[in-house]
């Protein structure tokens, strides 16, 4: 069981290397090696350092953020089915982004509208779930699910009235797509910040699993912890959604993969979830770019195609 952390940590450089080595253009080993070392022809260097490396890192950041948010939400809501979409944030961002696309906005406008939608959803969840006696996980869950289905209806309406020329772009956004990701620096910074913040609370999160009253009796400032972790999960989700659209399954499946492999303490679970989520998304995105090259598949389809069977196999083995 101690093998799991080692495998996950090795997967990080391996997945990034694969994401840089493969793409719609076959560079061949010699040109690839030259380009990696900053030598050789300019086209190969541009493909490796200007296109593939940022894209690989964007995928890694996005997957890491989603998995981290999923791990936090699963312990906060004490619900194994919790994932970033449950906050309604992805739904809000999707409704905003699609509305902007319908209005014919450029990429920056779409991102801004997605951010506004996510902020509205997050604000609503926070406002409705803060009861008189502090946070209530069930209210969070219900508010999030209700908002998510409300935004789902908005998204459905937009898809129904949008001209067919726009629908494919919208579907790619909804399924998750890293091609417009651009510079990954901000997302990587967000991943690092969220990971450090969440990690600083890891011992208290272990105790929170026992329930809120028990955690209080053991000295955890439960309301403060919940606020920190919810805030962290929300920020991570917003950052991931702005980067790659509504990519599913990473946030749900990755924490479970780790728990089923014997990792349960949050001081290990949180950083490993960020690493595994990042690696899986970088790999899935590599497949999305190469399987049907030069066309690209929506990466969200591939995360589901990889994540679901892996989780089912692990579940079957542990029965």
């Amino acid at each position, binding site marked *: 069981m101690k093998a799991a952390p080692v495998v996950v940590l090795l997967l990080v450089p391996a997945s990034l290397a694969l994401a840089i080595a493969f793409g719609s253009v076959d560079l061949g080993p010699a040109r690839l090696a030259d380009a990696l070392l900053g030598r050789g022809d300019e086209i190969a260097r541009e493909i490796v350092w200007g296109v593939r490396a940022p894209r690989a890192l964007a995928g890694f950041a996005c997957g890491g953020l989603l998995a981290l948010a999923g791990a936090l939400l699963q312990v906060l809501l004490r619900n194994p089915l919790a994932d970033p979409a449950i906050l309604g944030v992805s739904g809000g961002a999707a409704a905003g982004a699609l509305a902007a696309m319908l209005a014919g906005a450029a990429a920056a406008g779409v991102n801004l509208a997605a951010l506004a939608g996510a902020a509205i959803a997050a604000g609503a969840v926070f406002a409705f779930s803060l009861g008189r006696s502090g946070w209530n996980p069930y209210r969070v869950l219900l508010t999030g699910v209700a908002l998510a289905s409300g935004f789902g209806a908005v998204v459905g309406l937009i898809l129904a009235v949008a001209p067919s020329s726009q629908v494919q772009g919208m579907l790619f956004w909804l399924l998750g797509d890293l091609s417009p990701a651009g510079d990954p620096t901000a997302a990587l910074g967000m991943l690092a910040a969220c990971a450090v913040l969440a990690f600083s609370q890891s*011992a208290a999160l272990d105790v929170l*699993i*026992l329930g809120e009253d028990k955690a209080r*009796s053991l000295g955890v400032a439960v309301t403060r912890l919940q606020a920190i972790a919810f805030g962290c999960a929300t920020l991570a989700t917003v950052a991931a959604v702005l980067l790659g659209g509504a990519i599913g399954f990473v946030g749900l499946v990755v924490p479970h993969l780790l728990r089923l492999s014997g990792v349960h303490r949050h001081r290990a679970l949180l950083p490993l979830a960020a690493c595994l989520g990042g690696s899986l998304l970088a790999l899935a995105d590599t497949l999305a770019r190469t399987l049907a090259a030069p066309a690209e598949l929506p990466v969200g389809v591939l995360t589901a195609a990889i994540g679901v069977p892996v989780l089912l196999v692990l579940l079957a083995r542990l029965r």
Partner: protein
Amino acid sequence: MLAASGLGLSAGGRDLVRALDLSPAPRQCWALLGRNGAGKTSLILALAGLRAPQSGAVAIDGTALGAVPRAELARRVAVLLQDESADFWGSVLDYVMLGRFPRSRSAFGRDEEGLLAARRWLAELDLADRETQAFRTLSGGERQRARIAQVLAQDAEILLLDEPLQHLDLRHQAVVMRTLAARAAEGKAVLAALHEPGHAARHCGFSVLLYDAGRASLGRSSDMLTQANLEALYQCRLEAAGAWSFLPS
């Protein structure tokens, strides 16, 4: 010392406790007896600072519980709740070590003293050979003993236990009661909600009887646990069961 004064608790429009003064002192072991719904759990939650009383106050060394930071309170008062989530993925030892949270804050520091304490209480409660087993795979009674070991590992001076004997077989009921009485003898203040007056009479020097409608009486178990009091408490006729009733010696 933990002291409730003029404590009033109600739930669902019913008075559970009215103007109760109770202070379990060090070296005392208290039994808390009463019918289902009499308010035992509410009283324990109020004493632990987990539920605000409707009237009166609970204080520790003169400071109201609400004014004591949670982290400090957790080093002084440990509580076994009646229901706790069983959703824990780690081993039995990991589970017991969660009780050390108020005493060791660093994520990577090794708590050797805590490890020693955790193993000691696991051994005392007949779980020494279950240390590495997954907590989820324990039986209900074994899980209950692991929960008690966690409370003991917290090493607080005041122990509040809500039905510590639930799910336990006869042997382990006695093991737990002896362990609790021994902690009291060492200088801790112990208060446990029980359903078996026999255990209270044997192991607890003091008893609180919670009657209906907020009435309570408390004092030495030898004075409190009379047949007349228990018949009034449980609202049923009692008789000496003679050869049919057993308590572990």
